[in-house]
């Protein structure tokens, strides 16, 4: 069986600075993976590179999605094939309402004009799932949103677009415990056996609510260690400094 997402010896840089230095990772349909790592280890770079952010240059390796390289694809082509990134810092877009934006996005991803009625029904059911106010859709995308609202809006987009592979970049940051629970419950409901999920997080907290089968620790642009959920707990107990010192001794 072809893996859903296969990252092979991926190297990427911002300007002259190499950040990812040969990263390997395979995610199959139905799997939940978590990537943890200290600040500056390359977590957000990985998220951006997977989605094709032009601010980053891939300098080596490959990214295969459903068996095909996506390196030459634009971000929108990747999205239409089923990749989704929930941003750590969702970008405010004054003047574009969430409902208008989502409608264009759904049409683009489906490759056809979705009837307005069908779209609205879907949008409102997903808004209910994420416990967001119906007025939310009429607001400008991420404009003046609180930290929690931004993350819910990201999850709402994921729920409406139904991607095959979702990357959640620090989705827990900026969320209080109630919001975190709501968001996690929604993600758990959306997750299905044909979908892959990659959680990128600094803290173990999120993983109490969304349980990964695989945990990877990213250090200096490479996966330093992989394991099960117990690896996350081990990290949380020891802290990154001690973990890094332990790696250095090994």
């Amino acid at each position, binding site marked *: 069986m072809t893996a859903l997402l296969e990252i092979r010896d991926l190297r990427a840089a911002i300007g002259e600075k190499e950040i990812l230095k040969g990263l390997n990772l395979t995610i199959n349909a139905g799997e939940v993976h978590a990537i943890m790592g200290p600040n500056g280890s390359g977590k957000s770079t990985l998220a951006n590179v997977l*989605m094709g*952010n*032009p*601010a980053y240059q891939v300098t080596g390796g490959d990214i295969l999605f459903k068996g095909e390289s996506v390196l030459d694809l*634009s*971000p*929108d082509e*990747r*999205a*239409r094939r089923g990749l*989704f*990134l929930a*941003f750590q810092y*969702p*970008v405010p*877009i*004054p*003047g*574009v309402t969430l409902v208008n*934006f*989502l409608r*264009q*996005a759904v049409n*683009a*991803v489906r490759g056809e004009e979705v009837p307005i009625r069908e779209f609205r029904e879907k949008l409102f059911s997903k808004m209910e799932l994420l416990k967001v106010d119906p007025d939310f859709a009429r607001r400008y995308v991420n404009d003046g949103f609180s930290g929690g609202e931004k993350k819910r809006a990201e999850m709402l*987009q994921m729920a409406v*677009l139904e991607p095959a592979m979702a990357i959640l970049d620090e989705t827990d940051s900026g969320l209080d415990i109630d919001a975190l629970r709501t968001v996690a419950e929604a993600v758990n409901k959306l997750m299905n056996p044909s979908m892959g999920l990659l959680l990128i997080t600094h803290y173990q907290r999120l993983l109490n609510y969304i349980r990964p089968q695989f945990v990877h620790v990213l250090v200096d642009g490479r996966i330093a260690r992989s394991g099960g959920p117990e690896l996350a707990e081990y990290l949380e107990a020891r802290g990154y400094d001690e973990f890094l010192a332990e790696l250095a001794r090994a």
Partner: protein
Amino acid sequence: MTSTTEERLSVAAQSRELGASDPAWLARLRGEAARLADTLDWPDSYQSRPWKYCNARGIDLARYPAEHDEGIAVEAPEGVTVTTLGFAEGATDERLAAALGTAVAPGTDRFTALHYALIRDGLIVDVPANTEAASPVRIRRTVSGQQFAAPHTVIVTGPNSRVTVVEEYSSDGADILAVPVAEVFPGPGSEVRYYVVHRWGPSTRSFGYQRMLGAERDATFQNLQLVLSGRVVKGQLESSLLGRGAASELLGLAYGCGEEYVDFFTLQDHIGPDTRSDLLYKAALRDAARSVYYGLTRVGLEAKNADANQENRNLLLSKTARADSDPVLEILTSNVIRASHGATAGPVDEEQLFYLQTRGIPRPAAEAMLVWAFLEEVIGRVPDAALREELLGLLDAKVRGA
């Protein structure tokens, strides 16, 4: 270069001919303007800051006869009088006589002098006291054939009245020199909304002048300059806030393509106490289009509690588009509520583009969404929903056709 003898004789002759049936007050104004047109120079790029980027000195006046082949269509709601110069009667005529040429002086520069020397189709919108116009006054002016055009609009409102005036300028493909002038005199407690749509032909150069004389208490003025086309569209717009509590909101929006050139000078002049002004000018520019904005907010010694804001935003959609922006504050009293200004010029935000693209929206569509959001904000300030939709429709047609 002062005017040539040939030009001088021609302006004087045309002015005399046009003024043959003038009432005495207009004959005086016209005669004085013709003399000024004679002595004044074209505005100089080196000496007059509003003309820094726009060279008027090359204009050959002999090429633009004052033929005045100008079509005017007017719609006015009940209670509002709209009359052209020469047909005004009674009190309206008196108001016109008292107002014409007092807000925008003939001697402002050579363009205004020529305007008054060659004026013919002046319009007065006269709104009596305590009148709330049920629908907008519509003025549509169309200029055809090579000429010097001098459209003039005067808006006078009585106390506590409200009116919206939508004026649309258009012209054919001929080489046209237009000098439109608008003078607005809101009465105490009255509100004037004046929206100007520029749909000039591709070879028309328009040098416009507008002044709102807010002499009365609590007079409110909202103005929109929507520039959709024209070879050169330049405007010199002033709001003089004299009456206590007078307020002005100046809005400007241009979507330029090809080699279109848009140039605005604005003056938010706080003279009386408790006056408010706001300004939002935006331009989105494709191809080799160019926008120039120079704006002055002046808060005088007596303008206590002034609240002034001024923003100019430019979106550059090609490498050859260019925007020059210079908002200036000049504050003479320390007792202000706010005096702020800002200016930006740059391409579409890459982070916003990336964000939209990650949701499957192709780059051109994402860019179009961002451009539209940028433009829509200005028209969003128009309170009347039906007018807003109409103006957005005009803008949409220009954006799609570009």
